[in-house]
């Protein structure tokens, strides 16, 4: 069955890059432009994994992850946290909020696919 990935990022170009890369690899991709929209889509669609940026208007990545993890639907759904910042404190916060893994921007298309394959198979 096709796996669906929710890509949450306020940058259209990064969303586009993520979406095209994953679609070419056979995943379904849902896009959201900020954490608030991400939360709505994560709760109203079936998603198998989530990629989220940190710095976004309305609701940031950490806030989105925390809010999503309050819902039982979030159980077992891997969230990958994207950040331009490789500081350990942010990773720690992401992990505590409920992210499974993270990627540091910039990343390449093969890196992205490797990470998604790792969490979705």
């Amino acid at each position: 069955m096709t796996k669906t990935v929710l890509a949450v990022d306020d940058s259209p170009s990064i969303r586009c890059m993520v979406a095209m890369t994953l679609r070419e690899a056979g995943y379904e991709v849902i896009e959201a432009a900020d954490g608030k929209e991400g939360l709505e889509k994560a709760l109203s669609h079936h998603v198998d994994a989530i990629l989220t940026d940190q710095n976004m208007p309305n609701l940031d990545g950490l806030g989105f992850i925390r809010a999503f993890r309050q819902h039982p639907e979030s159980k077992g759904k891997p969230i990958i946290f994207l950040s331009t910042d490789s500081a350990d404190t942010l990773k720690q916060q992401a992990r505590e909020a409920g992210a499974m893994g993270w990627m540091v921007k910039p990343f390449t298309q093969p890196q992205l696919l490797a990470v998604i394959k790792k969490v979705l198979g």
Partner: protein
Amino acid sequence: MDDDMMAVFRQEATDLIESLERGLLDLSDQPGDRDLINAVFRDLHTIKGSGAMFGFADMAAFVHAFESAFDLLRSGQAAVTPDIIRLALEARDEIIGFLSEQADPDGRRAAILAALEAAVGATGNAVGTAPLPEAAPTGQAHRLWFRLTGNALALGARPDLLLAELRELGATDIRADLSEVPALDALDPEVCMIGWSMDFPNGITRDAIDNVFLFNDVDLRLEAPQAAVDRVPVAASDPVPVAEPVSAPARKPSEEGPQADKGGATMRVAAERLDHLMDRVGELVIADARLLQLAQQSRDPALMAAAEEISRLAAGLRDTTMRIRMVPVRSMIGRFRRLIHGLSETIGKPVSFIVRGEETELDKTVIEQLADPIVHMLRNSVDHGLESPADRAAAGKPAEGRIMLEAEYSGAEVVIRISDDGRGLNRDRIRAKAIANGLIGADTILTESAMNALILEPGFSTAESITEISGRGVGMDVVKKTIEGLRGSIEVQSVEGRGTTFTLRLPLTLAIIEGLLVEVAGERFSIPLAAVQEIVELPADRIEEDGSSDFLDVRDRLVPLVRLRRMFSSPGAPGEFQTVVIVRAGETRAGAVVDRIIGTNQIVIKQMSRLHSGVRAFSGATILGDGTVALILDVPHLAGVGQGVEDRRGVAA
């Protein structure tokens, strides 16, 4: 990374840079606004992130330092000052340079950053690209045991995938370790109590194992062949960023192309494609008019029904297409703010620039062509309109001048007002100048609005000193020409000592409009319907002209008549029933006398050829349903002719 993505990135970067500029300028007005600081920070952050993804590493490093400076503002360690805003705007300009791959031979960029850092009091330069991943220790091992800990399953860990990865690395003899699994009633289904053990006959590196468990909280033991216990819990808090692809992507790219974007509520389209679409819709509207006419001639009810259906669809398509092309006035405001900010500093007049109705939308073409004239008017307002701070103080006005730009809808038009609270127009000087230039005779009597309108004539400038800012008196006539070219109008109101207001009226759209089709001496002409105020019968006793003051009394208000038959020197006498179409351009009205009204139609405006472009009476031509051409009457010109009638009356009186 293909061209499409690059185009998306460039468009996004352009938008972000604009948004950044707007944010900085707003911030200069409200330096304490935390939301604005956050917005600027976020723009910078996004530019940096996507720039790095799309190969602009130098730019990302530059923006990173820029962003670091704003981080200090964000965290409240420094306050926004005019100096910071100025430097930030300069830095913003450099980002454009990076995107167009301009070199920086003079080291300007580094200088701006250094100055910016100094201005916010930053210590140390944080320029740097993403750090390289740390290398993990390597070693040989043969036997592995692991168990997922914590809430790994709830976070989405999949033991089956981990085992598959380990199997790919050469794991054999994988066994489940059920020793910790409690009785069923004590089992927490969200906690993984099963452990696994396996052999790696060919050895395995510590790196590879760490990569497998990159994202997982795990207890693991890696035992060397000598059976030395090497228990290394991988701390959840200290994972390693993804360095290299763990393995090549296993899935074959699917045959189908990228699917439609199900998530995005908006999409970006190149403006050129919209223009093509508009052209096609224009052709469709013409073809539709022809079809409708043929259907009516055939008197075939089925064909007429089908033609009407198509007509309805075409009208809907036209409206939708035009809506797509609407752009808010906001899109050009950033440029104006920047201009006024700069001017105000250059010539030392403090100015507050107030914008109202930013959300008012106009056709893209109108917005594009409007920006330059407005820039010119704003320059004039700052340079000529506003007095120096000393003069303002003497006049009892606040030192800070006020320039306001307001946009609002008014019927099928958008009205844009640009006003200042400066000294106003000096009518005596305008008059003297106009007489000197030979624009009017020494004894000409002009109404106030006609006098004000003189400043829109070529070669007119009353500024005592010609300054670098506003040029040499060429300009307002160009502004007027551009606005009229957009089928709009411009008016000047002024109160001496209180300020000047320019009022621009612009059509919502340029490409397709509703027209009123009229007949004059057997020829058909179209009048833009938006300009038509009312249509009245010409009384029988007024069919013939009676002298110089040719007016019609419409509900106690006089409207000057413009007899089109006479204007076009048509042969023959006017018929028994003449009709007056009263049109309005700006504040002036005129009644065009025509033989008869044919009806309304949609007109797709075609520009006149260069040969005919000097003909003032017509603004363009359109193709009618039967394939013939009708000329479009130029309403501002008609009103102008009417105004001439009125002025003669004023002089005569």
